[in-house]
């Protein structure tokens, strides 16, 4: 079977699965789950085989031609796509398997797995796309699948609101993205990624506006400030969904897309700077917000935001002045920042999916209790979960030797080399990361159970544990690029690696950061049912909470007070002026004239004779030429 064929099957299988579920398996939840999971396995198998057999190809087909506009659909399977498809395939499969257990008793299982299948289809579409229009198409579809999955518990008002918010906020980002694509189409005459690269490298000037507009898409999808507001709310969805979509893959699509269009940024450094600052601010802001959260998933959500900020910042940091030596045979992108971002994306996908699934396991064990202050003592009751979650925590806070350590180091190194303020911000964010993750970890797993639910907690079934183990292994080992062989060389070779004194410095910083954050957290938080920070420093706690609330408050204010009122004002104006004054007024005037004309028929013959006289006079005047 040719590589094209495998790729196509991999891409279309989940679509078929979703279609079959939607059409025939609506009431057969178990069958639907099985089908969807098998599809996920097929994707993982197909994706990994493509990636690791080294098949690299592209191909297009004409999909819509109108006039001189042609929209092509095509596959571009290079190292970047191979890396991404591997991540999506593996994490996707894990989440599917986890879901089998987690969603076992859900009434709407079929809908859930159907949604997952659509998501897999859409995500694969983004990964494989060879042009921006195609990316956009699947981009939107990803948003849609996210919408249905967040809205899984639709009887909850909060879920309905969250799904709506996610979709609309994403649309705001897509607004810019689409404009960027169109601008790109006219600037380069093509939206094909390879052709754009050629043109840019061939010297075509790039207006900073184009990459920035495209970046809007990433801001929406990867939830960067100021469009980050949807992601914490998206935790209303089932936890495996959060793991897959809102941590590991979909939100990372923004980073992936940036890497895809990296040459444009390379040609427009201004845009790159903007991206860098957005990322850095997001990283810091989200980390600060995470500190005050009490919902286990919200903590993880803000952590995801923060890590996404990291990746974006990394991308924005751009190239290292000293290019590392290395193979450039299948080079499709050229800078260190992008490579670092992709690296962190990969490791983050593993450990964040792990932690989300772990939290899912916790929630499942605690009968859907999500408040960390009502947990405690789970280390004993849920051993597997505890162990794997711990690995995840260590990975994210940068314990040397685990996956997160390497990728975070690469980013910090790049920042240190390129931009000191950003370096400080990122380092501080890392401190905070360690702080809040440790806080979470302690509160959940240690001390005495602080609620009935926690005290009756138990480990879930095999399908819940297995994915955790797999992901834990990956979180531990995923940072060793050598393990992947040379299939992702185009990416891995660009990862900035510190040498010499820089290496030492960064190592020290990294470890210091971790120790500092974790240490503070250990000092501050004992397993308790109240927030220690709130008790000890209410001012600071309130400030942080305010920080978190401010965006939501601002948006809510905008929606309720500005947008809605403005809409009602416009409607009112239309009703009063257009339909009222102008239309009804005109009708009224005509009606009055009509009444007048009607009233001329007074019934008296004399009046009528005067009409005749008048008529004769007028005609006379015409005849005499006085009226011509």
């Amino acid at each position, binding site marked *: 079977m040719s590589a094209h064929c495998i790729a196509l099957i991999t891409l279309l299988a989940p679509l078929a699965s979703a279609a079959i579920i939607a059409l025939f398996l609506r009431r057969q939840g178990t069958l639907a789950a099985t089908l969807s999971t098998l599809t996920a396995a097929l994707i993982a198998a197909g994706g990994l085989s493509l990636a690791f057999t080294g098949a690299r190809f592209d191909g297009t087909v004409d999909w819509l031609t109108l006039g001189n506009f042609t929209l092509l659909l095509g596959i571009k399977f290079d190292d970047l796509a191979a890396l991404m498809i591997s991540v999506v395939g593996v994490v996707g499969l894990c989440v599917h398997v986890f879901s089998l257990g987690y969603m076992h008793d859900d009434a709407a299982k079929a809908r859930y797995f159907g949604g997952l299948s659509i998501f897999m289809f859409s995500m694969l579409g983004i990964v494989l796309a060879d042009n921006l229009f195609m990316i956009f198409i699947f981009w939107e579809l990803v948003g849609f699948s996210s919408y249905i999955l967040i809205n899984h518990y639709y009887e909850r008002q909060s879920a309905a609101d969250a799904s709506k918010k996610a979709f609309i906020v994403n649309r705001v980002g897509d607004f810019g993205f689409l404009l960027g694509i169109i601008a790109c189409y006219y600037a380069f005459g093509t939206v094909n990624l390879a052709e754009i690269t050629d043109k840019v490298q061939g010297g075509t000037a790039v207006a900073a506006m184009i990459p920035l507009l495209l970046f809007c898409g990433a801001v929406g999808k990867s939830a960067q400030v100021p469009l980050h507001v949807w992601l914490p709310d998206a935790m209303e969805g089932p936890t495996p969904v959060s793991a897959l979509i809102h941590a590991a893959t979909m939100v990372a699509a923004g980073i992936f897309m940036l890497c895809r269009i990296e040459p444009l940024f390379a040609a427009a450094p201004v845009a790159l700077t903007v991206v860098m600052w957005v990322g850095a601010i997001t990283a810091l802001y989200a980390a600060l917000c995470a500190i005050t959260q009490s919902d286990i998933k919200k903590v993880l959500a803000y952590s995801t935001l923060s890590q996404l900020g990291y990746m974006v910042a990394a991308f924005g940091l751009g190239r290292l002045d000293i290019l590392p030596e290395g193979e450039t045979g299948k080079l499709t992108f050229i800078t260190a920042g992008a490579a670092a971002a992709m690296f962190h994306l990969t490791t983050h996908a593993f450990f964040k999916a792990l932690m989300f699934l772990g939290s899912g396991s916790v929630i499942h064990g605690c009968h859907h209790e999500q408040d960390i202050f009502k947990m405690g003592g789970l280390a004993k009751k849920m051993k597997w979960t505890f162990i794997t979650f711990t690995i995840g925590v260590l990975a994210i806070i940068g314990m040397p030797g685990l996956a997160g350590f390497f990728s975070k180091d690469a980013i910090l190194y790049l920042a240190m080399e390129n931009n000191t303020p950003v370096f400080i911000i990122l380092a501080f964010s890392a401190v905070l990361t360690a702080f809040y993750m440790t806080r979470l970890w302690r509160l959940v797993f240690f001390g005495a159970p602080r609620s009935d639910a926690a005290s009756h907690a138990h480990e879930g079934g095999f399908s819940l544990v297995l994915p955790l183990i797999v992901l834990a292994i990956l979180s531990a080992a995923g940072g060793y690029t050598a393990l992947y062989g040379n299939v992702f060389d185009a990416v891995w070779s660009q990862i900035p690696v510190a040498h010499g004194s820089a290496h030492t410095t960064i190592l020290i910083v990294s470890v210091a950061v971790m120790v500092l954050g974790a240490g503070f957290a250990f000092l501050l938080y004992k397993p308790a049912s109240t927030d220690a920070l709130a008790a000890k420093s209410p001012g600071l706690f309130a400030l942080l909470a305010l920080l978190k609330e401010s965006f939501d408050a601002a948006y809510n204010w905008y929606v309720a007070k500005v947008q809605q009122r403005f809409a009602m004002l416009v409607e009112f104006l239309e009703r009063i002026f257009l339909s009222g004054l102008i239309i009804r007024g005109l009708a009224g005037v*005509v*009606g009055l*004239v*009509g*009444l*007048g*004309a*009607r009233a*001329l*028929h007074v*019934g008296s*013959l004399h*009046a*009528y*004779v005067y*009409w*005749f006289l*008048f*008529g*004769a006079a*007028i*005609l*006379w005047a*015409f*005849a*005499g*030429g006085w*009226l*011509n």
Partner: protein
Amino acid sequence: MSPELIHAAADNRWAAIAPEISLGCLALFLLVLEVFLPKKKHVIIPTLAIVGQIGLLIGFLWNLRDASFVAHETFNGLLRHTQEGQFMRVFFMLSSILVSILGVIALAKQKMPKIEFFHIVMVVSAAMMLLTQSNHFVLFFVALETVTVGFYILVSYFRSSPLSLEAGLKYLITGALSSGILLFGIVLLYGVAGNPTLPGSSAESMNFNALRVFLEANPENFLASVGIVFVLAGVAFKIGAVPFQIWIPDVYQGAPTPVTAFLAVASKAAGFGVLLILTQRVFPSYSDLTTPVLSAMAIATILFGNLAALTQHNVKRLIGLSGVSHAGYLLIAVIAANTQPLAIGAVYFYLFAYLLASFAVFGVMTHIAGPNDADQDLEHYTGLAKTHPFLGAVLAIGIGSLAGIPPLAGFMGKLFIFIAAFKAGLYTLLAVAIIGVVVSIYYYFGWIKAAYFETWSAPVLDGETDTRPTRTPVGLMAGVTLASLAAATIVLGFYQGALGQWLLTK
């Protein structure tokens, strides 16, 4: 007798006016029957009148293939037989039949002598047939006055109703006034054109051909101009063009419904037939005068008719005023006919569509009308579509056609006029016509609304009587007639066939 006289007498080729003669004879025969038939058997006379007329119409249509008189003049130039004339003959015979049919229904509600009604209708129809073939002012005037006098009688036919008589009086006085003006115009034209000192003058100066020659030779004669506008004023009265339209609502309301139909359709058509003859055959060289006159009339007519009808509740007045606006549209075509021969066909087509639609509507009105024929309110139509779906459907089709809604015949008529007007470059008139059509939608729609939409009607309390008159059940003959009118309106909208082809290639 001198040879010329013999020749002149021999030129009276009576065969050329066989339809009119036979119609007149049929009318006389009815009177004779009334005298000789026993009282009890008088009931057959109306049926006989209708059947006889239908027979005449069929016979005439059969003989239409024989066009030996077409494009000839007979009766020493008093008559000129044209294809349009043949068309108008059919038109008037048709309307005579339809009026007779409506008359049967309407007269049944009133205790009135019947035979005279049919007699007068037929004589008037015959006179109109001659009128639209006239080629001489003497014949023109005599035929016109026959029509007018006939209408005086018909309008006041329901003599037990003061309203009918009042309408008769109003029609009488305004009609006589307009006849006076018309006559004065004719006299002036006759006098000027017979003036031997002027170029092109003729001894037979009341003959249209001679008059035309004279007018071409004297393009800016004041007396001729006055004569022309006065003649036009007389015709304007017939067609109900502003400012000679003012009598219409009152007379239409007071007149018996079939007569209203006759006035609205046949009298107006006769007016337009005459107007076309005059503008096309007699006054073309004075188009610099007639065009602005008719244009001003058209604009005022369309606007006035539609606006005045807007808030009208009495359906007879309503249809009268809407008829005024139709006259306005037709006037546009008459003006366009100066440069676009197509417009002539448009006028005839429009008239024909108008006949079908109007009689459909009047047919329904006749059934709805109560004992007080002048009181026919929109309110009487509430729920019509539910209680009498057939009448409702016919009404809707008729009104739709009058409003010019595709795919009904009335739309085609308007379309032809618009095309002709466009070709003639009459953009202002066209704009006014469009405004008129839009305004007219409102009141036509109101009528439909009354019949279809509003199912609510005031409850009849104890001790009160329902103010709405009882509706006459639809008889066989009326049913067939109304159905064929409606069907013809629809078919003619889709498929104009030979009729369209014939009218539009003139």
